[in-house]
């Protein structure tokens, strides 16, 4: 019985000490971030956080916003939607943050968005591409493009830039992102005058695609579209090359990972995929971001880091233009964002609070990534 009360007493003392947080100071603007610092998609959350941290440091070194320093409060959501809801409620009602940045995964953004809307606190999502997210209310924004746009642009790229009329699709049925992209790609490609001569499906986690590929090969396509994630994408390309399918293969932003070339190697030559920015881009904003990020965190910034950075800068710019930290004022300023020069291109917020911005196409040559082109919306 003694040990029992001892443990309990120790536990609660620890909790009380840990539970005492910091307070609000007058010379700071509090910004809340919720992200998947741990859990199944931890790399997304950490990259975004690094990008955002860089944006905050830079802004503060340049004198802050409205004469005040930005203070970033970050909450981990363990890659779980219900945790995201709690984290955001805590940030808004206990820490009194003026705006929220997050999340990468649409599922967590969808859980948090109604709360931000309810308390009239603007929320900027760096990378949630599900169209539903910004439909949650007029305080919800994003700085990335949405899936329908990506599917459409990739179809235009294949038809116009590459000049192909006969395509096949190999999609991941388990993954809604992949199914959505395939659907939007097909619609646009066919309306342009091209034909999708065959379509096959696989499931995330598969490792043998020869059956589907053989069926697709029989349709004699000029090009293949493989929306999905990088692991399966690389394996599909590799096996297609083994079957002597030498045609160009096109993927979406799910391919953007250093793992793609590790798995695919030389087989990845003559493939194209869309992403949010290229580290090889010669634009001044990109060059300075890549240099600063690499120096600060000792790694090359991926797309999530760039989007986190842009989300931060767009928000700070909006607060500056709003002139105060009132939620509605910041929202109006965010909605009026136009031609903002970010790392991921020139960003304009449209009437649906989505970002209108260019899409970057990368290609693989000699097993390394090369910038191909930017497609303007």
């Amino acid at each position, binding site marked *: 019985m003694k040990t029992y009360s001892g443990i309990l007493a120790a536990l609660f003392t620890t909790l009380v000490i840990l539970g005492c947080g910091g307070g609000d100071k007058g010379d700071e603007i509090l910004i809340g971030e919720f992200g998947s610092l741990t859990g199944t998609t931890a790399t997304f959350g950490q990259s975004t956080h690094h990008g955002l941290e860089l944006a905050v440091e830079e802004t503060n070194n340049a004198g802050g916003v409205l004469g005040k320093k930005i203070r970033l409060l970050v909450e*981990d959501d363990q890659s779980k939607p*219900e945790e995201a*809801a709690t984290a955001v409620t805590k940030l808004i009602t206990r820490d009194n943050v003026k705006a929220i940045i997050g999340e990468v995964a*649409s599922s967590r953004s*969808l*859980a948090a968005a109604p709360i931000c809307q309810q308390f009239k606190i603007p929320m900027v999502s760096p990378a949630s591409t599900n169209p539903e997210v910004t439909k949650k209310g007029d305080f919800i924004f994003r700085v990335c493009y949405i899936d329908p746009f990506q599917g459409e642009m990739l179809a235009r790229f294949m038809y116009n830039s590459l000049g192909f009329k006969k395509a096949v699709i190999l999609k991941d049925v388990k993954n809604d992102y992949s199914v959505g992209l395939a659907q939007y790609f097909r619609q646009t490609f066919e309306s342009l005058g091209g034909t999708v001569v065959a379509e096959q499906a696989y499931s995330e986690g598969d490792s043998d695609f020869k059956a589907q590929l053989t069926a697709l090969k029989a349709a004699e396509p000029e090009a293949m579209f493989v929306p999905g994630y990088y692991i399966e994408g690389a394996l599909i390309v590799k096996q297609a090359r083994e079957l002597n399918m030498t045609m160009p293969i096109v993927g979406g932003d799910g391919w953007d990972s250093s793992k793609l070339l590790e798995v695919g190697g030389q087989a990845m030559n003559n493939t194209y995929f869309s992403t949010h920015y290229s580290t090889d881009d010669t634009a001044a904003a990109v060059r300075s971001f890549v240099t600063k990020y690499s120096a600060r965190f000792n790694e090359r910034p991926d797309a999530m880091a760039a989007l986190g950075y842009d989300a931060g800068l767009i928000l700070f710019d909006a607060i500056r233009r709003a002139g105060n930290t009132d939620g509605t004022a910041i929202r109006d300023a965010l909605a009026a964002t136009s031609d903002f020069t970010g790392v991921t291109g020139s960003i304009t917020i449209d009437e649906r609070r989505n970002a209108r911005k260019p899409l970057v196409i990368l290609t693989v040559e000699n097993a390394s990534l090369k910038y191909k082109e930017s497609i303007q919306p």
Partner: protein
Amino acid sequence: MRLHKSGLMLIAAIVTGFAISRFEHLINPYYYQVLIYIGINIILASSLNLINGFAGQFSLGHAGFMAVGAYTSAVVTSQLHFASSSMLNTAAFSLALLLGGIVAAIFGLLVGIPSLRLKGDYLAITTLGFGEIIRVIVQNLDFLGGARGFTGIPKLTNFVWVFSTVAIVILLVSNLINSTYGKSFLAVRDDELAAETIGISSTRVKVIAFVTGAFFAGVAGALYAHFVTYINPAQFSFLKSFEIVVMVIIGGMGSIFGVILSAILLTILPEMLRSVAQYRMVVYSLLLIVIMITRPRGLFVRTRTAKQSVALKTLR
């Protein structure tokens, strides 16, 4: 007499819930949210305790039943939601909660009848498999939103609903366990063969515990869905089942009070640890290890006195 008393207690509990909900707006929304999660976790842990703790069957499928309840109720309210009248909302939501529970219970029956004839580890694996099957099926059903999740669920869950359900679960479990019927649960748990010899149908007992547990998991899922207002299949993975199992084990298998306390503790603990940011789950896990080493029978289970141990030994 007992039933009469329980009824009174239940009414008292619901009235208290209403009384507290009058002051709902005075509570910081963050604490309010944690309070709701505590309630939902108590329902989940207490209902699993019925299966794992009292009937002695190790189930790892609780998140699956929760998913069934969540999705069923979400479909019901999205079809029946009348924003204009709060009376109709209440009626629609009670129906949704009930249906969520009933459909989960039917699934519990379907899984339970064949698999509860199995013993020990086999049951754990079957239920684990069931949970994953549910998740994958939902992932592939377009009308439930597939992998993208079900959006636009009305926010109907409030303190009164959660508090009343908690009261019902606790009363039901404690009454059941103290009844003759409940004694047969304990008999099956302690020695299945002996229980069979005195005429207790062990499969029947297990199925009843399993179905009741599944019912409340379904109701908890429904409450959860109407609080978070957005559900997707990934929220109901086997990790969620493990979380609930941990609550039961930390509280002490078969201890009603212990499991309630541990559900409260394990919901508050990660919130308290927010100040250590991404390291909080490390601290959290360390605390769990320490608890398991120092109190292997559960944090809130009284250890037997020396006298009781001796008495037990002589009995054997």
